[in-house]
């Protein structure tokens, strides 16, 4: 059973501390959402877990092993990452890009075999991208590219998946498509999923547990009901927001109201014709 543990993690860019004394755990089969304002350190945490940036102090343990002491190939076999903006080499076909997920399973001089093709094709079926297999990725839409990248992560056959804003730039239908897909994968395969999300409503709908990050520290964690409260929203986002229960499933939903940030001018002034 794979378990992720962050133990008093500090991360800095230069002298600028971005993450301070961060602790949390994620269990297998659990879908955990990282939420928090821009610049709170969500992406940084994802990058640190996937060992793209280094820590100042602290430890990140995956399955009892220190992530920073594992060979990169081993890490890539147990952990897959869907980045925020996937820049894909436009001349490669979708199939070729998904096939790249087999890299950590292949030796330096080894070529992909029948098994690798089957796994790749399976992953493309699961993400409904198999009809795009021979298309060049430069010709695909944002939603299609995101699904291709998820297929590539599945092709790695990881036990855990990190996603950094996988639904940014997607319309509502594609957001739901992607998150349903990830949720199902998590449930059916007992995967550990850590997902950074901006959209609090989506986070509340899909995640078993939320971790609210503010200024590089855990502000609150727990079930969506425990984390998404008017109090927490006010403290972290600094805006008066209204938290309601979702009419269908009762999960918390956040609705915003215009003109209640500290930048807001009295409504009468705007109507008064400054523009």
């Amino acid at each position, binding site marked *: 059973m794979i378990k992720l543990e962050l133990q008093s993690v500090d991360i800095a860019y230069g002298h600028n501390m971005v993450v301070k004394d961060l602790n949390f755990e994620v269990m297998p089969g659990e879908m955990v959402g990282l939420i928090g304002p821009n610049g709170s350190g969500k992406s940084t945490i994802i990058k640190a877990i*996937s060992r793209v940036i280094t820590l100042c102090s602290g430890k990140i343990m995956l399955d009892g092993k220190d992530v920073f002491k594992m060979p*990169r190939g081993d890490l890539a076999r147990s952990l897959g990452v869907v980045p925020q903006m996937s820049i*894909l080499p*436009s*001349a490669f076909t979708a199939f070729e890009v998904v096939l790249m997920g087999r890299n950590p399973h292949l030796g330096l001089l080894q070529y992909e075999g029948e098994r690798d093709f089957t796994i790749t094709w399976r992953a493309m079926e699961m993400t409904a991208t198999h009809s795009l297999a*021979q298309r060049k990725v430069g010709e695909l839409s944002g939603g299609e590219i995101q699904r291709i990248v998820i297929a590539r992560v599945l*092709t790695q056959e990881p036990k855990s998946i990190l996603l950094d804003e996988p639904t940014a730039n997607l319309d509502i239908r594609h957001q739901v498509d992607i998150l349903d897909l990830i949720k199902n994968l998590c449930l059916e395969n007992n*995967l550990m999923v850590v997902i950074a999300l901006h959209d609090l409503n989506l986070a509340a709908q899909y995640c078993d547990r939320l971790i609210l990050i503010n200024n590089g520290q855990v502000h609150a964690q727990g079930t969506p009901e425990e984390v998404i409260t008017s109090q927490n929203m006010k403290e972290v986002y600094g805006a008066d927001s209204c938290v309601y229960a979702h009419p269908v499933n009762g999960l918390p939903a956040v609705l915003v109201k215009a003109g209640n940030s500290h930048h807001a001018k009295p409504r009468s002034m705007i109507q008064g014709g400054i523009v």
Partner: protein
Amino acid sequence: MTLNQLKPSSMVQSMPIHFPRWRRRIYSIIGLLIALIGVVAVATAIGSVHIPFLTTFRSLLSQLPLVDITSGLSSTTETIIMEIRLPRVILAGLVGAALALAGAAYQGLFRNPLADPYLIGVAQGASLGAVVGFILPINWHGMGFGIIPILAFAGAIISVAIVYSLARVGKTLPVTTLILAGVALGALWGSIVSYLIITSGEKMHGILFWLMGSFALSQWSEVKVVLPYIVVGVAVILIYSRSLNIMQLNEEQAQQLGVNVEKVKLILLAAATLITAAAVSFVGTIGFVGILVPHAVRLVWGPDYRFLLPLSVLSGAIFLILADLVARTALAPTEIPIGVITAVCGAPFFLYLLRRKKRVVFF
């Protein structure tokens, strides 16, 4: 998780055959290999002294082990073929292969279609070394060649080493800093070279001829020196072709897919620099091969580096052997600098490919 255990989706569709495209590329590699052997034979047969094709082929075959043919040639003809033409053809092939492969590797490494083997100061460093060699009053012929190739090689390697140490940030090597440091240092070397040329007096002609590249003085001793560098460098680059594919994603994603990006960058940079330096040190900074051949290969066979790299090696060799053939026969007995031929013959062909496939993304 193994995907084999996953529930197949409702839209199960059997996997289409993806191999034909791969098979086409493998056939292309074999085809180009045969073409290369043919081109070597033809280029050896053609020259200012007329020797019939069949005689040349028999002479070449008689040199191979396990072949029992006596060439039955006069010793003069034998000398022309074996000591003058063949080393020249083989050196042209080696240099073409090295430059094309280094160009493809740099383009992949920098994810930049404008990259060529000379981008980070190899050529300017080699030129400076060579020009210093021309000017210094040294008459050393220790290994069957003079001081110039040695200084050119040293200049190229030292130049890239300086660029590398300037561009390094901590434990990483950002590609943009590398390119900028290379371009800046290259400009510095270039201006010193220009100054030295102007003040070089009667040596100016020799220097300019070297800078444009020439195979006129090729000998076996040079082939023997260049061959090991190029064979080792080519092998190393080919081994890392899958990593190069994955690095096209971007460095972060490549790391997340298990590629040790910094290590691969360093290895590829060292190997590509080594083969470029070895290639230019004897024959001068021949332009256009390193940028044109990989793009032409990309346009025809696609961007997959596992095929792009070997196909570039073969196409580069064929292209430069043919270019050298034109250089020495078109205006015989005058030799045209090969850099002129590579551009004059290569550019129109490349533009034709570009026009024909203009609607296709290829990089």
